[in-house]
């Protein structure tokens, strides 16, 4: 996995997953993830990342696509007890969902690798 040097050289970020529209990186030192999406970088801890996943996965994309109303094509993704929220168009929601799905798959893969290679071998 690619190691990204940040402005603060003490904080090393490792890219977990990226798409054309954004990327997710993990910071081992702070036990958190940085999501670079929709023009901003936001920091998410374990609880907030799970809440974001739940909020995005619960959006009914099919219903959004079929919606005939004249209201604006935006959705507000609000995460309780977090400093961040996203105001996204339907296409951005699809992109964020893709980014999160990839991220959680990679985290699961990392878990399997840790289990098989390190925890059992030590």
């Amino acid at each position, binding site marked *: *996995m690619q190691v990204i040097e940040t402005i603060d050289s003490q904080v090393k970020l*490792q890219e977990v997953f990226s798409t054309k529209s954004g990327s997710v990186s993990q910071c081992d030192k702070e036990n958190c993830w940085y999501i670079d999406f929709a023009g901003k970088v936001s920091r998410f801890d374990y609880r907030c990342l799970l809440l974001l996943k739940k909020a995005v996965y619960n959006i009914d994309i099919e219903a959004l696509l079929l919606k005939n109303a004249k209201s604006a094509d935006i959705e507000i993704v609000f995460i309780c007890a977090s400093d961040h929220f996203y105001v996204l168009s339907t296409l951005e929601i699809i992109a964020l969902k893709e980014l999160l799905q990839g991220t959680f798959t990679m985290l699961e893969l*990392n*878990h399997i690798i840790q289990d098989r290679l390190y925890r059992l071998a030590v």
Partner: protein
Amino acid sequence: MKDIMRAKCLISAEIESLINQQIRKEAQSSAIYLAMASWCDRNGFDNSAAYFFKQSDEERHHQLKFFKYILDMGGTSISPDITGLKIEYNSFREIFEDALDQEISVTQSIKSIAARCHKEQDYVTLEFLNWFFKEQREEEYKARRALELFEIIGEQGTGHWEIDKHIGKIHYGTEA
């Protein structure tokens, strides 16, 4: 890269979701038994009402056990909302038939969690579930015995009175 997800939570998201579904099921069972207790009380079956009040308490206890397990493992327990309960029954017998169905469905659902645990090699949760399997043995036994009273005693004459008298005496004592 550190495995932060695993450090924060012992159980997988799938197991957590299945146990949360089980919490809902146990809460629903507890509410159903309460509705049954209400019907029995209204219709003069005091012993059966007491039996269902006790069953309702037990189901609530099971619900809390699952609830606390998820929290202890680092997950998120969800307090369920229960709606659409049946409050009227066509007969005294129907209540006990529904009670047995309910227990069978709970056993089945715990079995499906165990199947998932085997798949994921989650032996920690599997060990936790063992207590519930033992409990379900007793629950199903009691529900089946109650229903059998209708066959043995019969519903004619003072049959219902006799059945109600024996409901409170059902006891599972053959611990294997």
